[in-house]
């Protein structure tokens, strides 16, 4: 197990290196400069600014300089925010995104799994159709429409929760609901399909023939096996939820990463683009590793490290 994890960590570092290199060169292909007022700059002033920020050097030279700093743990400074270190920018924003993502994932998974299990246990009844309907709605309504409706009716008209901003737990309720619609839908659909399949398999039939309690079968045996594919999708989904949603953050004024990342790409804020991409990549790789380890815990049939004991 330790050897397996060690191996994976080395692969992780190689992957991160490749991602960093590719992002760097792709990013440099975008035309333009990171200067907000470039339209007002004279050619001379633009040259001086490029020189000041060492952006006039050939891209490979910039690449080596960036990677050297990266190894030392220096992520560089932001252009759009008056030379603020990128680590400070990300640090100030990651908390809100992570909290919101975590809450949405929690609500989404729990509600989704319950809906999925209910649908499977009451297959082809109104319960099943009802949960399917909710899942289809959750997946097909764009989040900006749902978030907008939620904000208007629940926030403005009913006044149950604050309309926007980020000042305390009650402010997280509506964005969490809006963000959890997608995981609810995904979890519910996967759960239902898998449950139906597992419930129809031979060993369940056998267990039932032996007279075991129906609910015991469903929850002790079927649920555990049906969880495998759900975990596969939930891992990466967790990362994308916790690294921030542009739409939800914009509508509910959440100080998160999503909006900042998109803006940094639009304004060529190179160091922010790099740092955010690396952060996302890092989280993805870690989550994939965690998911692989979880497989073994949930289903003993899956062996890590090529099945050697």
């Amino acid at each position, binding site marked *: 197990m330790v050897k397996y994890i060690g191996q994976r960590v080395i692969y992780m570092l190689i992957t991160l290196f490749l991602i960093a290199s590719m992002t760097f060169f792709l990013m440099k292909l975008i*035309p333009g400069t990171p200067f*907000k*007022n470039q339209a007002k700059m004279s050619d001379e*002033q633009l040259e001086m600014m490029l020189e000041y920020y060492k952006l006039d050097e050939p891209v490979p030279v910039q690449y080596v300089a960036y990677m050297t700093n990266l190894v030392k743990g220096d992520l560089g400074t932001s252009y759009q925010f*008056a030379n603020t270190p990128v680590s400070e920018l990300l640090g100030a924003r990651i908390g809100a995104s992570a909290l919101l993502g975590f809450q949405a994932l929690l609500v989404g998974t729990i509600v989704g799994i319950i809906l999925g299990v209910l649908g499977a246990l009451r297959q082809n009844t*109104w319960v099943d159709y009802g949960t399917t309907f909710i899942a289809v709605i959750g997946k097909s309504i764009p989040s900006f429409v749902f978030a907008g409706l939620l904000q208007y*009716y629940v926030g403005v008209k009913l006044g149950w929760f604050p309309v926007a901003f980020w000042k305390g737990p009650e402010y997280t309720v509506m964005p969490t609901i809006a963000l959890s619609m997608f995981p609810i839908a995904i979890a519910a659909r996967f759960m239902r399909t898998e449950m139906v399949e597992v419930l129809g398999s031979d060993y369940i039939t056998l267990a039932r023939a032996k007279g075991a309690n129906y609910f015991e079968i469903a929850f002790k045996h079927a649920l555990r096996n049906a969880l495998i594919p759900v975990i596969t999708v939930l891992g990466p989904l967790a990362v994308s939820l916790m690294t921030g949603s542009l739409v939800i953050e914009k*509508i509910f004024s959440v100080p998160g990463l999503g909006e900042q990342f998109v803006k940094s790409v639009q304004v060529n804020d190179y160091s922010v683009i790099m740092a955010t991409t690396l952060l996302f990549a890092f989280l993805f790789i870690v989550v994939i590793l965690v998911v692989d380890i979880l497989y073994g815990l949930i289903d003993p049939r899956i062996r890590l490290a090529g099945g050697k004991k």
Partner: protein
Amino acid sequence: MKKSKFSLLLVLTLVLSMFLAACSGGNKEDEATPDNDSEATGSELAENQEITVLESAEIPSMDSVLAEDTVGFTMINNVNEGLFRLDQEQNPIPALSDGEPTVSEDGTVYTFKLREAKWSNGDAVTAQDFVYAWQRALLPDSASFYGPYIMAGVIKNADKVKSGEVAPDELGVKALSDTELEVTLEKPVAYINALLAFPTFYPQNQKFVEEKGADYAKNAENLIFNGPFKMTKWDGVAATEWTLEKNEEYWDAENVTLTKINYNTSKDPQAAANAFEAGQADVTPKLSTPAVISQYEGDSRLVTWLEPTEFWLKFNQENKALANKNIRMALALAFDKDALVNDILQNGSLAANYAVPAEFVKHPETGEDFRAANGDFNTYDAEKAKDFWTKGLDELGVKTLELNFLGGDTETSKTVDAFIKDQLQTNLEGLTINLESVPFSVRLDREDTQDYDILHAGWGPDYPDPMTYSDLWLTGGGHNKMSYSNAKYDELVKSAQNELAAEPAERFEALQEAEKVLMEDAALAPTYQRASNLLVNEKLEGFTYHIFGPEYSWKFAKLNK
């Protein structure tokens, strides 16, 4: 099976009726809201002078030397102050300057007497604070954009200090004593007072800035104030909320009524309007979407004004077809600008038939708007456009023409550009427009390298003078970028810059003359002049916006009962 279909229908009906119930509930409340508003009559001051304002972006910098964006300028304008400040009618009024300055006969040396004012740490604001800040704005190590941009050609030796040719103390700003400041200009500048209200010209407390070093202006704790308000909460550039509180040490504190301004950011116009409706905000950011603005048509809470920001189609004359005047004129006349502002933009913007915006600058003697004498040029006329078009095509010896149209990638840009493309292709036979929508930084890059045929661009001013528009189109000018060149235009603008610098009226008229030349050449095709729209709580009196530099001043505002 039949039974389950029926239950599915039942679920659907239930969900639908829940939706409808929510909607109709909403309508009832809509009818109820006007009652609350009608109470807001009489102008007695409210006990609690605290408001909440929404901004559409964070503050990228609170250092007046480095700031280069509207939110930063606006905050600096409310917590600090320079020699002048803009009043409610956009006029510069003496602020730290004790009355109007004395001016030398040739109009280049200004002597300011400073009023007694204090920094929030108790230090007096001295003439040396101005010298320090202005020099700092030009030093290469500061890498300030606005310092060189706004001082070069105005303050004596600014460009030479920037390039290192002369020492910083050669800059045309001297402290004669603690309370006397002497400013030397390169040449007389008609709009100097308004220019000095721009945040880059504000003083800085040298002791404080140097003591804080790299931490200066990093957050509220590392800031110092001399304006109507103090920033009491701001965690730095990533913060989406911050707070201003009244500065009791401010020299004019008795005329400041608001005690606290809470700021939040809201980047979605509909969400901002929702927060406003729910009473979570007293002022929204500028609302850019027609769908949101149209909900408030005729509503007294909607405040609309015309910005001096103008948009136009630039014609790249490196393209042989666009070097032809008849072709340019045909393109300029062939799209319906009234339909563009009324049906597409729907936000109070004005159809622009001119190169210098309306309601921006006034004749120094008659007080008439720049537009009064010059009127409209090249208004929409499909018939005339066709004539120019056939003439132009004949001269070029072709029957069809294909042009690339480069525009922005925002929702508004895309809609506007698609409309213009459609109009041009419909009215001009044989024309094919290839529309390309690209991000802002890409557009700038391609404008720089003149990699376009037609470009939809815009310009907003930093100071109230027609020159900010006129010098754009000089031959080889830094912002021309379309290879336009007309000797007569150059002559007029250059005479305004040099010989006529001390003759405000003649100078103004020369620039009006220059505009005529430009428009008769159809060097560019103006599209529209933008309007701003936002929602303001009706109880907030004295809401003050500005049309260049900082956007709002809260010094003049108060909350009524």
